[in-house]
């Protein structure tokens, strides 16, 4: 692509296609490449740690998946703050787990005492009904870690009769609508639901062509 100043630059593609990456991938891997890739993958692995009754953190072993009737996941700072302000308290809820991960944007630790400004991903359980689980995920889970997060977290719970609610926020500027977003009364709620969800939804459904991506979508 030639710019106005006459120099030729490689235009970034909307399709996310990066030719250099392709060339790299197309080459056969040497044993050294494989080793480096494995080390990088290990660094980006997610660990889901569940606390046992004694309060000590322990690796999620290949134990029995636990029963779960309702799982509420809040993704992003706003959704996490909503739960902190309106739902969570130390009387009714107890911390039962934490996700430890690292990526270029953030790192979470295995500690369960966090500040609101930290990046964290914690699990809480309703003391009066231990099948109700809540997750506050204020850290950014990278593209290549989202599937892993999904498999490791949901892999720990029994899915029969499970109802999942995902809370998330998006910028109003990203909302596609006929009118300008300047005149839209905001904030506003939109929902997506699977056909198995039979209850009443508390707000309108998300209209085409709007979509949700990343961890909430996963």
């Amino acid at each position, binding site marked *: 692509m030639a710019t106005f100043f006459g120099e030729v630059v490689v*235009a970034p593609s909307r399709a996310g296609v990066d030719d250099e*990456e392709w060339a790299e991938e197309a080459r056969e891997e040497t044993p050294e490449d494989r080793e480096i890739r494995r080390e990088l993958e290990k660094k980006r692995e997610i660990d889901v740690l569940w606390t046992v009754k004694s309060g000590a953190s322990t690796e999620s072993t290949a134990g029995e998946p636990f029963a779960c009737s309702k799982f509420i996941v809040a993704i992003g700072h706003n959704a996490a703050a909503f739960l902190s302000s309106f739902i969570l308290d130390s009387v009714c809820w107890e911390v039962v787990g934490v996700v430890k991960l690292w990526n270029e944007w953030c790192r979470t630790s295995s500690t369960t005492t966090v500040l609101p400004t930290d990046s964290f991903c914690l699990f809480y359980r309703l003391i009066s009904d231990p099948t109700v689980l809540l997750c506050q995920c204020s850290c950014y889970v990278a593209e*290549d870690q989202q599937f892993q997060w999904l498999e490791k977290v949901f892999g720990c719970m029994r899915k029969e009769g499970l109802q999942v609610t995902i809370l998330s926020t998006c910028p109003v500027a990203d909302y*596609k609508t006929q009118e300008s977003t300047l*005149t839209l009364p905001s904030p506003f709620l939109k929902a997506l639901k699977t056909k198995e969800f039979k209850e009443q939804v508390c707000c309108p459904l998300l209209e085409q062509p709007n*979509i*949700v*991506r990343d961890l909430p*979508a996963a």
Partner: protein
Amino acid sequence: MFVPCDRGGGGSAGSDFKGFTLLMPAVSVGNVGQLAIDLVISTLDMTKVGYFYTDCLVPMVGNNPYATAEENSMELSINAEVYSLPSKKLVVLQIRSPFIKNKYRPFCQTLLSWVKSSKCARIVLLSSSHAYQCDDEQLLGTPLRYLLTPDLEKAVGGLMQELSWKEMEKVAAYPGINDTEKVLHIPGGGITKLLFTESCSKGIQMAVLLKFCSEGDNIPDAFALVSYLNEWLQLIKSEVNTSSQWKIPSSWRLLFGNGLPPALF
């Protein structure tokens, strides 16, 4: 990888693709292949029969992109879904998000083994390539090209000659230094080259149909590519003004942003 939808009446018939043609896009420059696939699914009113559960694509979800009315607008849609039209022995895969780094090869391998296990007869891949890489000869004449794996060449090579289609040219592996060694080069084509070379080596019948284009308003490119495809597969009756026969899906609304704030004027 493939998870069938459970449709009460359809049952397992929805996932029987023996002898079918698999039509799919490459995530490539201008997203032309994906737009063309949208036109095919929307025009032929294809039924969703399942999806790919894969960690190779960025997750996304939304409501039915082919909705025509309130009633059918509430079905969830994700990043890799499969549609079928048994009357034309056609199964279509639509990909709606980019690949995750280092996942191109695993995706190609899983896809090709699914194609083999579901006994699809052949794959037709819709793709595109950077127009700025065209040489002088390519700039003249049609911007549409095709490629056939050796196994499909035997079956339909003659038909391509009749249609006067142009085969994708190979380029020098070391331009300027050694012009005799030629390789296939599809800049901006995403997984096109990888999938094509893998299909050649696995004896899979595959055709690639691609268009040279640039990023911008790629709707005309999508129409051109889908008409090109139709010359061969005859999915719809081709008349003089073919562009009016392809149905634009409702999800193409607002491709270039929202309405303007009245205060601007």
